């Protein structure tokens, strides 16, 4: 896939972020059926999937440069969005190695990694052409990078990243680069365990979802990453919907009307993957966020109809937790005329290869 970046796009202020036709068709649509409920929706993260967005360990798309810039802006205002507890240094290097190796292997025109050795103490050279970076450093020596290794590499990657330390048969959120979260706070959650940080999620605890997911993750094996999709909605294509910046985006929820919903209301899908890290035995949790306006999404007829059905039948607890309650009626009214009620194929693929022109 050739990558043509859109470096001028913005995720704040004038919100010029848009998806190309190709980006729409590769969107990781999260609803295989007309109804949605929480489940342990974890599957092996293999190099295939319903759309192209699933097919690489660490996906990079046309929004790469713009997203990296947006992250830098958020970090400038609030450096606390990147936090790493001191015992996570080995996991930081694991993350840097995993990302650099995969980015260089999957996108050789954009990235390259040259190593004089594999073990700590070896000299490595990293080239990131889209961001104009060339960096020589000693693998294992943080002083040879402009910042700590986790921050260094995640500033050059799309999506948020958390690292969980595994101990006492639990996972602890001991590191994070979190600038595009769906309304949760790293500052608040850092150091918490799996059950604690999932505390606010409704219905899923009672259904045993988290207990089973945790047991499964404790056994996650090196070389066998897994993935799941999570979703919510956002008003405007805004990456930074954090509690810390609530005043900058919360009030927008009141601005949605039936007329403007198509362009304002965005489906926000997180392609989350889970990786056992090799040296630290920690688990890396990349949260790759994809944004699409419902107007763009509805250009895939199956997706527009299905979103309408999922949202009409969404349990109220989920709508409330995800913060949709206020603008759900306008969104449904916008989607309703597109849904003829015809039966839809199960599965999440678009079932078309080209979009009708607008």
């Amino acid at each position, binding site marked *: 896939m050739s990558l043509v970046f859109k470096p001028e796009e913005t995720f704040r202020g004038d919100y010029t972020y848009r998806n190309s036709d190709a980006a729409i068709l590769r969107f990781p649509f999260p609803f295989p059926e007309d109804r949605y409920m929480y489940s342990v929706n974890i599957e092996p993260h293999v190099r295939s999937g319903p759309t192209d967005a699933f097919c690489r360990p660490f996906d990079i798309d046309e929004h790469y440069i713009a997203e990296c810039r947006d992250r830098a802006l958020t970090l400038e205002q609030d450096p606390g969005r990147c936090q790493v507890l001191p015992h996570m240094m080995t996991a930081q290097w694991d993350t840097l190695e995993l990302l650099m190796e995969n980015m260089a292997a999957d996108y050789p025109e954009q990235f390259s990694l040259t190593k004089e050795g*594999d073990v700590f103490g070896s000299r490595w050279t990293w080239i990131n052409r889209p961001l104009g970076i060339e960096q020589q450093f000693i693998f294992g020596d943080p002083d040879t990078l402009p910042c700590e290794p986790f921050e260094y590499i995640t500033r050059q990657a799309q999506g948020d990243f958390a690292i969980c330390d595994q101990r006492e048969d639990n996972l602890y959120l001991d590191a994070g680069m979190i600038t595009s979260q769906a309304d949760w706070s790293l500052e608040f959650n850092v150091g918490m365990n799996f059950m604690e940080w999932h505390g606010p999620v409704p219905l899923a605890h009672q259904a045993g979802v988290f207990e089973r997911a945790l047991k499964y993750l404790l056994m996650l094996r090196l070389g066998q990453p897994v993935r799941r999709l999570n979703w919510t909605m956002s008003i405007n294509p805004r990456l930074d919907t954090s509690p810390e910046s609530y005043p900058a985006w919360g009030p927008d929820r009141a601005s949605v009307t039936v007329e403007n919903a198509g362009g304002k209301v965005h489906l926000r899908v997180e392609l989350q993957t889970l990786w056992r890290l090799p040296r630290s*035995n920690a688990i890396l949790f990349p949260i790759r966020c994809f944004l699409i306006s419902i107007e763009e999404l509805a250009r895939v007829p199956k997706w527009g109809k299905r979103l309408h059905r999922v949202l009409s039948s969404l349990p109220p607890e989920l709508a409330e937790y995800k913060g949709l309650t206020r603008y759900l009626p306008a969104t449904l009214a916008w989607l309703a005329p597109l849904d003829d009620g015809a039966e839809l194929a199960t599965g999440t693929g678009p079932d078309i290869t080209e979009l009708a022109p607008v």
Partner: protein
Amino acid sequence: MIGETLELTVVAVDDIAPSLRHVRLAAADGGQLPPAAAGANIQLRLQGEARTWRNAYSLISQPGRRDEYEIIVRRVPESRGGSAFVHEVLKPGDRLVASWPGNLFAPQRTARHHLMIAGGIGITPFLSYVADFAHNGTSHALHVCCRESETGTFAPWLQACGDLNYYWDADGHRLDIPALLAQQPAGTHLYVCGPAALNDEVIQAAADAGWPASHVHCEHFGAALSGGTPFTAFLSRSGIEVEVGESESLLEAIERIGATAPCLCRGGACGVCVTGVLEGEPEHRDHYLGAAEREGGQLIMPCVSRARSARLVLDL
């Protein structure tokens, strides 16, 4: 970095003691191996004439090394098993299939001090621990119980050990476990790996001295490895009989013969593969079924669970 099995070549075998063989392994294609953590193991598929063994060995190579893996295999007396195969048959140039490294005994990164107690060959996971701690500058001490004649055997891997102590069975040389535990600073994590008697003694002594269980760790192999006794599964709806081998899951066996079975996580968590059992007794290994469903014996998760009986009849 995605994969399940590794093709390895034996680079060298070397007897470091009468019953201890040091084996060096490299990727068969000359490429890089996945890095591994302190405490990691690999499972080797040892192909004997009459049968195949799958034995797990601790990696003793420096953590993160990608050019070679090293293991030490003790010859189990009287055994005709995998360890005898390694000692008698395995030679440089041989090919082996191995799992990717797994780890059920990783050091606790939050510990302020790591106290390791090894018995005999149980020292192997600690050889990589020591390399890791030395590199990270983490406070640690290793206490080894072995024969007096064996105190030098592991020296090549312990050069960087900050605090190394040997004990053997003679007056004045035995390890006084309660006394050792009493001297430890707050925030110490205790690791033990050795014969069952030593493990039990150390765990008991720690409990008696009021150590929280979360600070006491014991190496146990095998829990994460799938496979088990072969059995037969009969798919009643399609009328097909499947032999489930010792190293494949029921789900894999069903897929191998071309039958389709629903699945998602392939690890016993999501519930998608749940299948009715019409006859036979399942051996449940999943995290999905509740206690009552397990007792009922009428459901099975084929992605991880197996059979206690020789034959299972499935509603599939």
